[in-house]
């Protein structure tokens, strides 16, 4: 075997250029929290200033941003867990679509709760399939993801029947007390279940990823699977587990689309959001809070553009407004993407030597 490739102080190891300070190690407690608190404070100030100026519109735009961001964040979380474990998932689009379908189907025959469960399980089943393709059958992960997306599109269109309606509606949850706060009360604490859950899930995922054993092992498996293997971490099992559970997140995104943000299913209702989620994942550097921020930013842009067009301040064709998030993604990636650093082992099947 060849001699080892050294990583000396000042020269990089085999993993290429350094990303930013962000990803080097678990955020140390004081400075990370302080930084985040400052950011939150700044954003809150800006939001309330806008609210004071024009309450109605600010609420509308911010509300739109949160709704727009929710399925994207969920899809991105699905991709995040997978990629942090070393598996690239471009089948998120297919998972979302399939889950929207099964969720809608069950909701229209049995009930909303059944629909949600069905959607999540569908996402997980497809996640397990991706794991099977990528880990056991060692199919190129991009191909595997493509297969999932094509199959989902084909199968959902094949079995689609028009004219169904769902039984019941998603309730709106109001957190007592907190929901009274102006602006924030309506935005954050008065929401249907999945929207609420998403915010909690982001926090939970951050904690799990950076502060628990599971998180450490997952990240190790995604950066350097053989290092994890040689200390006894079961790489295969962990990848299977993670990608399957991650599928549940995509499933949640699907049922959000067909049951919460609207009450309908159409062919290709996912409309490329699974891919947008991937772009957000890269923009957010595979960190839950940053991804959430990126998604909200996109929702905000889209919401602002919509609002301005509605008020006829901007006179642009509707098509240009709807394409705005996509065009913006390209710009953002062009500016930022070259410098990001994905989990080093993402995309490569792991072979025990």
């Amino acid at each position: 075997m060849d001699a080892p490739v050294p990583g000396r102080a000042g020269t990089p190891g085999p993993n290429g250029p350094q990303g930013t300070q962000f990803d080097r190690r678990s955020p140390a407690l004081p400075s990370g929290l302080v930084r985040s608190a400052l950011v939150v404070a700044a954003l809150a100030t800006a939001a309330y200033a806008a609210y004071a100026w024009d309450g109605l519109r600010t609420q509308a735009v911010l509300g739109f941003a949160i709704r727009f961001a929710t399925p994207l964040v969920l899809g991105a979380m699905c991709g995040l867990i997978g990629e942090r474990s070393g598996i690239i998932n471009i089948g998120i689009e297919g998972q979302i679509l399939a889950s929207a379908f099964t969720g809608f189907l069950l909701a229209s025959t049995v009930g909303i709760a059944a629909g949600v469960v069905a959607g999540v399980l569908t996402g997980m089943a497809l996640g397990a399939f991706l794991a099977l393709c990528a880990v056991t059958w060692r199919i190129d992960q991009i191909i595997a993801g493509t297969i999932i997306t094509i199959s989902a599109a084909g199968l959902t269109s094949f079995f689609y029947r028009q004219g169904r309606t769902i039984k019941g509606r998603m309730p709106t949850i109001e957190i007592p007390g907190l929901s009274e706060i102006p602006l924030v009360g309506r935005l954050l604490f008065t929401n249907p279940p999945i929207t609420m859950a998403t915010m909690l899930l982001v926090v939970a995922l951050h904690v799990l990823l950076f502060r628990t054993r599971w998180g450490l092992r997952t990240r190790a498996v995604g950066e350097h699977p053989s290092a994890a293997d040689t200390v006894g971490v079961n790489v295969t099992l962990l990848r299977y587990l993670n990608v399957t559970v991650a599928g549940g997140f995509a499933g949640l995104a699907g049922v959000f689309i067909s049951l919460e943000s609207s009450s309908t299913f159409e062919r290709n209702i996912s409309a490329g959001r699974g891919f947008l989620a991937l772009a957000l994942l890269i923009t957010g550097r595979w960190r839950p809070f940053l991804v959430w921020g990126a998604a909200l930013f996109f929702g905000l842009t889209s919401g602002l553009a919509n609002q301005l067009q509605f008020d006829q301040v901007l006179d642009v064709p509707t098509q240009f407004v709807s394409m705005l998030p996509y065009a913006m993604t390209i710009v953002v990636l062009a500016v930022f993407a070259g410098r990001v650093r994905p989990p080093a082992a993402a995309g490569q099947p792991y072979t025990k030597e």
Partner: protein
Amino acid sequence: MSRLRSQAFLLPVFSVLLGFAVGAVLIVAEGKSPVRALGAFWSGAFDGRDAFGRTLEKATPLVLTGSAVIVGLRAGLFNIGAQGQLISGALFAAYFGYRVGGLPGPLHAAAALAVGGLFGALPAALAGVLKATRGVHEVISTIMLNTVIVSITEYLAGTPWKAPRAAFPRTPEIQESARIPRVGGLPTGFLLAVLAALLVWFLIDRTTTGFRLVTVGSNRHAAQYAGISVGVVTVGAMALSGFLAGLGGAIESLGVVGHFESNSSGTLGFDGITIALLARVSPRAAIPAALLIGALRAADTALQFQAKVAPEVVDVMLAIILLLVAAPMLVRAVLRLKAERDGGELQLTSGWGS
């Protein structure tokens, strides 16, 4: 040696047959007759000049998008946005075909084709530049560009370039001089597509330019060491890929439809990818693969009305076929064949950072 070679040929064939088998199962599950479906397939795709012409028409853009994806893959790039590039080519070729006057027949058509190719190449080249200079992965940039393209073409076909008195967004009919004719009832466009695919094969397999392209796709670092400019190859390969897809769209507008209409299907039409993978990234094999899928798509209406089967069953079959082609070990398992040392799986892309 010959056992391996015959396996290389038989495995895709068996994948197709197994895909058909799954399709049959789905049809039965819907309570319909697979035999009638097969009959509908035959009559819709092959029975008679009309049907066969339809098959060739459907196959044409597939040959080209398949070749487009193949060119990208050989260079290590996954041009998942071929469909969008096709649409772009279709619109601008149609525009050139109706707007620009005074050119004699063949010249007008040829120029319109070139314009279509160019406008397919541009977005793809942009993605290539972003990859070469900023490291943006082409899967994401081409998909994003697809939506942008669809929006722009919808707008153009719906407002400034809209055919007067049209009920939906579409451009006016192209002039006669821009039309690509049928010869003996069969579409010439198909021959153009086949020619293009063969030229691509020759380029990749026999020329030094092709050698550079494939070397970059096989080992970027060795390519750099060998003095090959990885950036130039990246942009060039994407541009060529986009050109082929745009050409496919142009032929649609000039030879089949006669104008451009925006039928945003929503899905990104992954057929080109399916072709590229079925053909195991060989441009020559893309031709029979495209004929197969073209035939399946041409039989759409026949399936729907003769056999009462939803044509999306074809999508499911294609997904299964793709799965089997991408993982030959599955086919071997079903057929109980012995494997070579490595399973023969296609490993095409190497992650975001490569």
